[in-house]
């Protein structure tokens, strides 16, 4: 029984994720090929634009930028899609009896499947810029797993909060703008000082981004402290989010 339940859970998760992915490019001729083509083309454009910037301070600036960009996109894609997922699926949730977390999980998972496609494009860009392969790049799957936990935890909190105040959606989009500037996606951190530097270094997203940059561009493995911080941010946020989500489930159902 237990095993068939979890098999059903994953079957449903795949179906829901498949729906999101297919719907995204549903009206296009190339369909699912866009999943790789779209990030690849944006990356080419962005590198053309950014290849002239910060040339003296950062080596391979386009890659520096793209590394931050894809992780940032995965996180914002996951959380933005999740905010409204319970409200979007209201009719279903009232009719069908199964764990409602699944809807949040499906949207986050979709964003990370898209990150997978973006990584194909990213790999192409690494080859174009002749970035040597490094052993330290093997940290990526683990890092992405922690980022997944972090994004999922935040998504649980946001999707639940949205049922109580719809304004969260707009507040969050404003917060994201601020958060993006604090994540040093397109500028070097070294010249910054004081409280801003401190904020950036404590920012969990910057933690993931800079670890990935070090692994890809400098061949550096994260030190134990960095690894522990990633584990805590990823695991802790996930636990907090899913705990609060489960605790408030019946109140959420009343507010649907």
């Amino acid at each position, binding site marked *: 029984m237990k095993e068939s339940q979890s098999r059903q859970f994953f*079957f449903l998760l795949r179906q*829901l994720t498949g729906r999101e992915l297919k719907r995204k490019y549903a009206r296009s001729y190339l369909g699912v090929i866009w999943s790789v083509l779209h990030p690849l083309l944006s990356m080419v454009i962005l590198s053309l634009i950014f290849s002239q910037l910060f040339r003296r301070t950062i080596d391979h600036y386009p890659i520096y930028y793209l590394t931050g960009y894809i992780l940032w996109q995965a996180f914002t894609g996951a959380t933005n899609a999740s905010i409204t997922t319970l409200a979007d699926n209201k009719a279903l949730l009232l009719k069908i009896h199964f764990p409602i977390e699944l809807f949040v999980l499906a949207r986050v998972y979709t964003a990370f499947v898209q990150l997978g496609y973006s990584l194909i494009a990213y790999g192409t860009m690494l080859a174009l810029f002749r970035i040597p392969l490094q052993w330290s790049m093997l940290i990526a799957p683990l890092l992405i797993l922690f980022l997944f936990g972090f994004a999922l935890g935040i998504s649980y909190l946001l999707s639940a909060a949205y049922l*109580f105040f719809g*304004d969260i959606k707009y507040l969050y989009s404003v917060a994201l703008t601020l958060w993006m500037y604090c994540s040093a996606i397109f500028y070097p951190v070294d010249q910054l000082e004081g409280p801003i530097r401190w904020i950036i270094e404590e920012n969990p997203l910057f933690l993931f981004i800079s670890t990935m940059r070090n692994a890809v561009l400098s061949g550096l493995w994260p030190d134990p402290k960095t690894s522990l911080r990633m584990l805590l941010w990823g695991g802790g946020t996930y636990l907090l989010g899913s705990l609060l989500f489960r605790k408030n489930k019946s109140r959420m159902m009343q507010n649907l």
Partner: protein
Amino acid sequence: MPNFTQTEIAVEKVTMRFLKAQARTHSLKELLVQKLSGKHRAEYFTALDQVSFTVQTGEIIGLIGKNGSGKSTLLRIIAGALTPTSGKVRVDAKKVKLLTLGAGFDTELTGRENVYLNGALIGYSKPFLDRIYPDIVRFSELEGFMDEKIRNFSSGMVSRLSFAIATAQKAPEILILDEVLSVGDSHFRKKSEARIREMIHSGSTVLMVSHSNAAIRNNCTRVIWLEKGRIRQTGTPNEVCAAYEKAENAL
């Protein structure tokens, strides 16, 4: 008459209240205003008010009543999709199946993709869907259309497909029907009614909501009449339906 001995479902003083839409705080401003002014308008709508009854194994119960009388809410609570505000439902959740049509249908997906998505949502496993897929296509008479997106389907085609998926399973031990007796044109309607009748009379315990008094009279062994969230009358289909019709016509 079958021998009704075992209690299959026990509904005990079930009350369901919903927060009224205009009383909800959906924005931060409203919440602040409420907290600061100390006024917390909690307006509730009572969908079910202390409803109690039991159902014996093999009974076919019809629920009747006007729109908004709480029939669907009651079915959802018994099916476990909603938790009542107070009271309890004793039932083996594993046996219960609420038949729902077209849950999660997506117009941008093909007929085939929708069969798997909808099937997964209503609890069918992948191997089971692989096995019944040909039957679903045949029953819904959609051979040759299954790789089309359903946004190109007519509404009749969509409802035939959703009906075929929902009724492709063997009748569960406790079957819950919320107004699914008739879909499609008259040809398909005959087919679908026959299939539903087969499910109803295959020995399951059944709870059904229908606005068709004929369907209730023809299929049920007992009828419960709900009015404004309370049980107004219980009894044989003939006497309760007659009383209900009389009350309706008096208006």
